[in-house]
């Protein structure tokens, strides 16, 4: 049973606070992805767990053991670095065996584990090579292999795919997911790439400016972002935001952006009643804005008048860059859409899927 717990963890570098009071709990066998923009403190958070940085205050536990003062080698973790960090003068075999030799594992056992890991990763015929004779993808596999043979309780990954080209990245993504299923161990993975986070994680922790923004399953994070940052960070193209006000209009509550007004469906209106006449930010994802000619059935759609600014045909869909008064936003519409650049048109907002944030706290209202 290897869980990982962060309790009020703070890391300061001089005056700068890199990790600001982070709390979360990772269950055994979970695949947690720490995601956020560069410089947000996610890598520092991981390095604290690895023991490569000292915690300024708070506690990190692996299982039930507080590891604040435990040396990296005694934490029973293995880490895969962004730059692979292979030992240049050792062969692939020796790179993978290095940690085991230090731990005085007997030779046959080392051989068994290395061959097995090499087999899993498909690098058996590279074992006698030096790192400089390997391609980026192969080096990455060796780095992962070096972690696997240690049979640690927790695997740590620090942006392991960011030096690979796009195609290889997709492939390695799937392989790491498979590895997680196979090994049944706790994985903690740092990335700035939200696609990696969404595709691999059992849960995602979004971090910004050293603070934990939200931690949840990928689907919940996407469907119910807790604040403006998470809403904007997860999803591509990003969610559209419209500053505006909540207003009472008869017995309805409406969102008034100054350029257009959309009513909130009665069934969803209850949480917003206390917020009428307050400044809010209205958010809607590009796929929830439809061409008026191709509205899916059974949705609660509201008309908004727009001008088409740019169209991008992606084949299976079209991205429309739309202008409504002072707002520009993106819609992801049916590829049969006939809307053309410069055209005045009406698009339909799917009012079953929208988000409203308090303009001052940026927290979601729900």
């Amino acid at each position, binding site marked *: 049973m290897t869980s990982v717990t962060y309790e009020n963890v703070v890391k300061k570098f001089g005056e700068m606070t890199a990790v600001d009071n982070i709390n979360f709990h990772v269950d055994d066998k979970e695949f947690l992805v720490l995601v956020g923009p560069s410089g947000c403190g996610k890598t520092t958070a991981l390095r604290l767990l*690895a*023991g*490569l940085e000292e915690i300024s205050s708070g506690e990190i536990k692996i299982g039930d053991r507080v590891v604040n003062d435990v*040396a*990296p*080698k005694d934490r029973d*973790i*293995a*880490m895969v*670095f*962004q*730059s*692979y*960090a*292979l*030992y*240049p*003068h050792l062969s692939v075999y020796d790179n993978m065996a*290095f*940690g085991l030799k*230090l*731990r005085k594992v007997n030779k046959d056992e080392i051989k068994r584990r290395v061959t097995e890991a090499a087999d899993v990763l498909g690098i058996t015929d590279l074992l006698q090579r*030096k*790192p*400089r*004779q*390997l391609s*980026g993808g192969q*080096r990455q596999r060796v780095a992962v292999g*070096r972690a696997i043979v*240690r049979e640690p309780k927790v695997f740590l990954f620090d942006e392991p795919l960011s*030096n690979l080209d796009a195609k290889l990245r997709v492939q390695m993504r799937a392989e790491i997911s498979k590895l997680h299923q196979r090994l049944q161990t706790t994985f903690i993975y740092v990335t700035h790439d939200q696609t990696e986070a969404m595709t691999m994680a059992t849960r995602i922790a979004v971090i910004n400016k050293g603070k934990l923004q939200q931690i949840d399953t990928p689907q919940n994070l996407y469907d119910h972002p807790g604040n403006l940052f998470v809403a904007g960070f997860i999803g591509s193209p990003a969610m559209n935001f419209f500053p505006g006000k909540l207003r009472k209009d008869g017995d309805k509550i409406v969102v008034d952006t100054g350029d257009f007004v959309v009513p909130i469906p009665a069934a969803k209106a209850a949480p917003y009643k206390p917020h009428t006449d307050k400044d809010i930010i209205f958010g809607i994802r590009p796929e929830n804005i439809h061409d008026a000619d191709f509205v899916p059935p059974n949705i609660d759609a509201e008309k908004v008048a727009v001008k088409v600014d740019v169209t991008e045909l992606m084949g299976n869909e079209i991205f429309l860059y739309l202008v409504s008064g002072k707002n520009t936003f993106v819609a992801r519409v049916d590829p049969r859409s006939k809307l053309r650049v410069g055209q005045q048109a009406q698009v339909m907002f799917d009012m079953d899927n929208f988000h409203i944030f308090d303009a001052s706290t940026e927290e979601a209202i729900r």
Partner: protein
Amino acid sequence: MNRITHILRDQKLGSALGMLVLVVLWSMPTLGLLITSLRPSSVAEISPWWEALFNPLSTVWTLDAYQNSLDSGMLASLINTIAVTVPATILPLMIAANAAYAFTFLNFKGKEFFFAMLVALMVIPLQSSLIPVLRGMVAFQKAFHIPLTGTYASAWVVHSAFAMPLAIYIFRNYMMTLPKELIEAARVDGASNYQIFWQLILPMSVPALASFAIFQFLWVWNDYLIAFVFVGEQKAVMTYRLLRLLGQYGQGWRDVAAGSFISLIIPLLVFFGLQRYFVRGLLAGSVKG
């Protein structure tokens, strides 16, 4: 004609020609030394050495000078020089590598200050501290009854000490270029500082260690001053012996030429043995790209 200018314009050929000129220029004195050492004194004293070079067949060649210098104890001095030089190269190398590791990868109080002090020590000239060091050594051997002056060990200690600032400086600068992640990876893998030093840093620092070793070796090999002051006559090193060979009036200059040539052989072997480390890019491929 056209073709010649074309070839001359070719940069590779240009630099090769430049190299050739330099090589000839630089090896001329050595060649002169070799030929002089092989000519009988009666001829060498009345005609320049290049005459022998241009008429190799009509010249009389002799190994007299080699015989003389060997008879005067050159071989024993060669052993003495080796006994001084090898430890005086390895000792500072190992100590400085350890120190540089600490200055690069460990955090301790006053790290920057101590490093700055060490670098500052480089400005102290050897000559000005020679006698104070000798007096200190004499006081030490009186106090602890350990003989030092006149032994090889005294030269090891002094050479190591004077080499230390530059060696630490060079090694630290080199180790700073090693990717920090490698050390972190090793730490997570379970290596202690000692293991990281021996199994990772030392093998990866071979280019820096080798180039320092070459310089230190040549410096100690050619040193006269420290050997003269600390080791002295009992275990005369080659530089000391060469001066003796020259004689009061400089009459033994052909013997010196022969002795110099004997003393040249081992440094040449060392250089050719280690020179590949200058060009080896040991790190290629360890980190990204």
